[in-house]
């Protein structure tokens, strides 16, 4: 059962499974780390509520949870980036106050962030000693290099101290980050989604490094939402959901299905009220499409699906499994490396954004600030940003401000955008109203196909419902919609069919009335649809 799940990691999962019993045989009595009742609030959000963490020397703990479950916040509290509003932290049984990353480091806690904190143009050795508190004015680099070599041999972290960071692969850079922490005497290593940027081979090597470190008595906590990593890397797993600790499990006494269910946190998903309506012709068709990410590594592989007019296809998956690239190839922002994209029966493979817009495609971008609006332009101009090219807004290249204002007033009214005036700059609106502005513009200009990426992310309950109802209304009016979301409730509630992406591949497409959390959770963790029923 388990073997069928972990695709690239399956082979490494079993050899390390026997480490899971190590702690019991060692009989260590004091935990190296004990976090009790940690609560951290942000304006309007409780990121962590009464969370406990316990870690013994030589253990690897996995923190599992969906996006926004509070994993990173919890670890940032431990690493001294945030201060908890309530709760206590004990290191080796002694209560401590951690006010800064420097405090954390002194206590032997080091964190490796998802985006590495290295200086590209400096050498490995220089990066490692950078910021050490007791550094002499001219450091003895021979000694430093010697010590680095000694440590990298001991922990199997091959990296040349004299090479410069920009020359290293991502996997090697991560090793530098680990060395940096070990050099400073870290006993507890925190890794924030360590394999997100790694190739499968590098991920395997990282696992080896972690095991070597735990053999030496160090401990590690890693944040993840990938099931196979939990199984392959960890001794214990703690599952967070919406800021609360849901469960603590010994890794070898649980299974991916159980973890998937706990991670999603709901057994039953509700569907929104939807009228039955007939589907039209195929609006969007992808045939064996593949594409690379910014680093030139494959991000999408062999994607094939079609969406009919009037249909909503949901795309589920944990963030970073190719959703971004999928949206970008469909809107002309990224080229495919293979396959065909047909929109309304015309070849639109690798066409420019303008050509795709002109064929009637609208796009609600995932990052509404970076791509959705121009903050220093008025709401009216933002609303006109898609149809300013065509009459009546423009004639012979000259804009018609009065008509732009008319259009804006109509849309502000229709979508109940809360703005003081149409001339107010968009950046002064709330997130929900910025999203409504984008939605109004894109829906108004849409001629048959809408690509919506996380349209309700970060919105409050009312705005979320508004956005979802608009999606449904548009599909009933005959628009084909591709809805990328990480909210399963939204997908099951809004979409007709759900496709699950995992590592750039479609794990399967199933009708949303046949989707349940366990099936979706397993597909999100890399199990093919036909295997979930086995």
């Amino acid at each position: 059962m388990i073997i069928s799940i972990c695709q690239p990691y399956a082979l490494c999962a079993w050899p390390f499974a026997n480490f899971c019993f190590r702690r019991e045989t060692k009989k260590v009595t004091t935990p190296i780390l004990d976090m009790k009742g940690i609560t951290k609030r942000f304006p309007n959000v409780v990121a962590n509520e009464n969370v406990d963490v316990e870690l013994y020397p030589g253990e690897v703990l996995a923190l599992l949870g969906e996006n926004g479950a509070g994993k990173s916040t919890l670890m940032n509290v431990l690493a001294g980036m945030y201060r908890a509003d309530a709760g206590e932290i004990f290191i080796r049984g002694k209560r401590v106050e951690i006010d800064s990353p420097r405090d954390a480091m002194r206590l032997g806690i080091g964190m490796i962030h998802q985006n590495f904190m290295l200086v590209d143009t400096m050498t490995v050795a220089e990066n490692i000693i950078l910021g050490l508190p007791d550094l002499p004015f001219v450091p003895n680099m021979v000694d430093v290099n010697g010590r680095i070599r000694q440590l990298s041999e001991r922990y199997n972290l091959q990296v040349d101290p004299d090479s410069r960071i920009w020359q290293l692969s991502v996997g090697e850079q991560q090793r530098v980050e680990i060395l940096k922490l070990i050099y400073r005497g870290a006993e507890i290593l925190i890794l924030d989604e360590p394999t997100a940027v790694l190739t499968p081979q590098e991920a395997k090597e990282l696992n080896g490094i972690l095991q070597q470190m735990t053999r030496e008595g160090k401990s590690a906590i890693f944040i993840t939402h990938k099931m196979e990593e939990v199984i392959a890397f960890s001794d214990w797993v703690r599952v967070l959901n919406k800021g609360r600790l849901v469960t603590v499990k010994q890794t070898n006494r649980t299974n991916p299905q159980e973890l998937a269910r706990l991670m999603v946190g709901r057994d039953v998903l509700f569907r929104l009220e939807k009228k039955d309506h007939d589907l039209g012709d195929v609006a969007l068709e992808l045939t064996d499409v593949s594409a690379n990410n910014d680093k030139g590594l494959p991000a999408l592989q062999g994607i094939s699906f079609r969406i009919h007019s009037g249909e909503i296809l949901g795309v589920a998956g944990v963030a970073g499994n190719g959703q971004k690239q999928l949206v970008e190839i469909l809107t002309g922002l990224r080229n495919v490396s293979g396959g065909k994209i047909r929109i309304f029966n015309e070849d639109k493979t690798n066409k420019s954004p303008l050509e795709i817009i002109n064929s009637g495609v609208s796009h609600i971008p995932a990052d509404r600030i970076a791509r959705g609006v121009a903050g220093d332009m008025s709401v009216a101009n933002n609303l006109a940003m898609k149809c300013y090219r065509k009459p009546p807004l423009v004639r012979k290249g000259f804009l018609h401000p009065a008509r732009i204002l008319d259009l804006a007033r109509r849309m502000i009214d229709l979508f109940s955008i809360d703005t003081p005036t149409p001339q107010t700059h968009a950046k002064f609106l709330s997130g929900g109203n910025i999203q409504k502005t984008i939605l109004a513009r894109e829906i108004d200009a849409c001629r048959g196909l809408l690509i919506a990426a996380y349209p309700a992310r970060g919105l409050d309950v009312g705005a979320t419902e508004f956005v979802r109802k608009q999606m449904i209304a548009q599909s009933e009016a005959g628009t084909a919609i591709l809805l990328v979301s990480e909210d399963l409730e939204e997908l099951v509630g809004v979409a007709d069919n759900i496709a699950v992406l995992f590592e750039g591949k479609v794990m399967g497409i199933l009708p949303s009335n046949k989707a349940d959390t366990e099936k979706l959770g397993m597909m999100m963790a890399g199990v093919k649809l036909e295997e979930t029923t086995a």
Partner: protein
Amino acid sequence: MRIVFEKRKTLSRKAIFLVPLASFFISLILTAILLAIFKANPFVTFIAMFKGAFGSWPNFTETLVKATPLMLTGLGVLVAFRLKFWNIGAEGQLTLGGIAASWVVLFWTPFLPPWMVLPLAILVGMLAGAFWAGIPALLKVRLKVDEVLTTLMLNYVAILFAEHLYYGPWRDPKGFGFPGTPQFPDFTWLPRIAGRAHLGLIFALVLALVLWFVLNRTRWGFELQVIGNNPGAAQTQGIHIAKNIMTALLLAGALAGLAGVCEVTGISRRLQQGLSIGYGYTAIIVAWLAQLNPIATIIVALLIAALLVGGDQVQMMMGLPASMGLVLQGMLLFPMLAGSLFTEYRLRIIKTKLRDAQSG
């Protein structure tokens, strides 16, 4: 007690007018302090400066003479700055415009009907300026080369090239070794309208109005606005960023090039030393103080020109260094930049409560 900056809910319209005005007065006060240190009476000095710039008709036309190239280069700089393309190469674009116009006048005159020489000189000068701005623009959109470096470096290339020409191959053989070309024939002079003030002033005023209209009321202006504001959104909406940067920079260079043409055909009537005296750099201050608004650019250029001319007068009449005008100019920019914060933020004073007494 704590003082914090708080983001305003809406842009303050009042602040947009008050900040430049207030910064002008603050700069006057700062300069007054400086003048007092030099044991000069600030009031007398300021009045002398004002009189020097606006006090008489000849003085005023002299202010207009200085204002014209500032207006044209200021307009050029603002087009580029609207796209967040930091074009500090207006000086070089102006110089190359001057060189190209001189080339037409000096070498094409025998082959052309007289009435055609000046229009052609203007056209070629503008094209040369556009070309000079097009190089960094192309490097930027194709190879992502930083435009601050390339535009700045190309200034020196253009300035030294001009020097080479009027010290070397183009030098007037009858000029007693004076560094400059022979004087242009009189039918190629740009007509003067008052004193030394020439037709370039009319060009600048008309172009400012046209530019305002283009930037605010046309499809192309709208696209520039979106790109300058959020290139990510522009790309998403299918706006061709590279193409727009190219066209905008060609326009920016052409405007600066026109300034150069007007200087050589309207003022010096030859290519000589003194063409590149920093108009292109002052244009950056002009465009910035005008908050990238073409109409405001005209007014600010006039004001800055008044400071320059007034500074010269102060030197002659009071024995103070002429750079006092430049000092005032610099003093003007600092409060302005600091003040622009207040259009988006406001100060708020918060009385601290002993909230964190229990912690620690």
